[in-house]
């Protein structure tokens, strides 16, 4: 009996890992299938034709550039909005913290489609931004906030806010409060304490939030689909159009693989930058 125990102990982690590994295997198989499809030519032979088609045409490449560009500027804005919120949550009294958490949770669990449609009602010609301005005579015609990049950007800043706030909050609330007290006792004011103690210690949460929001924005489909009005399609919309409307699966697969590779590269860069920042701060 005594000898059986170590074997049981060794087998348990494997058994626990199995469902997760199987799930990953299914998704990995999907990626491999997509990759293989992207390499097929019309006759069923192997070819890089679809990649050449994509990379040689600026019109196609622009979908990738546009997606990275909007994700690139929306993510820092989401961080600027999310960090103070997370900081306030971590420093609030339990009732206030509960209220703020509830506000976030309600948003988090509301369908993207509902949230995006709600933004149409807010940002639209008759929305709560345009209507008071029109009523007050500040503007003569509604400000066009929808059906171009601005509307999509507003959605990509607001909708993924919980993905930024929760990771930062979870790190901030675990920072030892005595560290700030110690910094103050050594003569640091609140601003210096924040920038030299709190913020560096919250970097793991900030980086996690940046990665989550960046990926959310980069692969957004519903928001550009609904708020872009056909005039601002991102890479996911283009892939969907090729796969589901044009029925060109080989080209859609090639674009998907390009997007995947570029995303992995960006994640690697963020990871390296994050490691350096953490190294520099501590």
């Amino acid at each position, binding site marked *: 009996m005594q000898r059986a125990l170590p074997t049981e102990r060794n087998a348990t982690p494997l058994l626990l890992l199995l469902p997760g590994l199987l799930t990953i295997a299914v998704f990995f198989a999907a990626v491999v299938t997509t990759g293989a499809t992207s390499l097929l030519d019309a006759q069923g032979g192997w070819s890089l034709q679809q990649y050449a088609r994509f990379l040689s045409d600026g019109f196609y490449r622009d979908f990738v550039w546009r997606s990275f560009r909007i994700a690139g500027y929306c993510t820092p804005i989401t961080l600027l909005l999310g960090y103070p919120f997370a900081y306030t949550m971590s420093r609030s009294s339990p009732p206030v913290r509960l209220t703020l958490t509830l506000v976030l949770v309600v948003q988090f669990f509301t369908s993207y489609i509902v949230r995006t449609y709600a933004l149409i009602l807010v940002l639209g010609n*008759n929305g709560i931004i345009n209507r008071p301005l029109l009523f007050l005579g500040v503007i003569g015609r509604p400000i066009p906030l929808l059906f171009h990049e601005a509307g999509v950007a507003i959605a990509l800043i607001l909708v993924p806010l919980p993905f930024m706030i929760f990771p930062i909050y979870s790190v901030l609330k675990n920072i030892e409060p005595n560290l700030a007290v110690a910094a103050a006792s050594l003569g640091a004011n609140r601003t210096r304490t924040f920038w030299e103690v709190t913020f560096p210690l919250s970097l793991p949460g900030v980086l996690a939030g940046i990665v989550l929001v960046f990926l959310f924005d980069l692969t957004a489909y519903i928001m550009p689909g609904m708020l872009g009005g056909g005039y601002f399609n991102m890479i996911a919309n283009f892939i969907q159009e090729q796969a589901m*409307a044009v029925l060109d699966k080989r080209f859609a697969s090639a674009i998907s693989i390009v997007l995947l590779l570029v995303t992995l590269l960006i994640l690697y860069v963020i990871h390296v930058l994050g490691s350096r920042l953490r190294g520099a701060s501590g």
Partner: protein
Amino acid sequence: MRPLLKGCLWASAMHGLAKLTAAAQTTIVVMTWGGPFMDALNDVRPDIEKSTGTKIEFVTQANSVSGLQRLEALKANPQVDLWTTADATAAVALANGIVEPIPAAEVANLKDIPEKLIFPAGPTIWSSPRGIFYRADKTPFAIKTWEDLWDPRLKGLVTTSIEQDKGMFIVIAALLAGGSEKNIDPGFDKLKALKPNIGVVYKADAESLKFIQAGEVSVAGWAVFGVIYKLLEPGSNYKFVMPAKPQFMSVNLITMVKGRHNQAEAAKVINAILDAGIQERIVERLGSVPSNKKAKPPARIRDVIPPLNELYNPDWEYINAHYGEWVERWNREIVSR
């Protein structure tokens, strides 16, 4: 005690018999669109089950193309017997061996379906006029023709779609400019002139109404009647126009999926759906035109239904082969800013 025991045994025997009967009853799986389409078919399901002796189960598809992709993925072992789809997609499915021609001899009601509405992939179950709908109180003039969409007074007020009916809006523009699906350049030139008026492009028909209700635009330039059917009450600000020429109707077929074993029962279900009484009930809910000649269309649609011989019949095979190029041209030439 003995009577109680006897009663229990009797009840168990009856329950077992009922289960056996249910198991013997064939189940026909029908893939169709959700929302009002599913509701309309669900409404007539009990009568179809009764008349055919089969059980019907519905599965939904987001749109015809997603239905086609599901059937392609399950081609080796299809889980669906019957599939309702758009005529353009049905043509692709037939060419790819996803569906097969229906056994016409077993569908007696086909005799009441006009020949023009029977396609190689299957018969039409309903069709919907395509035209223009608009809000009269938000539109500067009463719209009557396709050309009205190009009126400068409609700057930014028009919504349209090329995904609905596989680019038929481009074909309509081409026809207006002297072209056709086989001579599409005049259509694109015509659409370039429409660019200032297009405020938003929609993918699904329901979106066209949503954008108009939200006040973003006021005219849907490639509208399907069924979407605003229920809003066309007397005195309503919503108006539907089916311009004189060219005229087109979205046609939905019922097709038989290849490789299923219940063909005889599936044919019975098709026959029941094409029955005049069942057709009337379906189209009353959808605001569509029945395909059975003996069935009456809903009162509100009667004025806009064009004669069948005046409808434009596109060459779907040609359109399917060129749709990818058209989408690309649309993206490059019309919606790029």
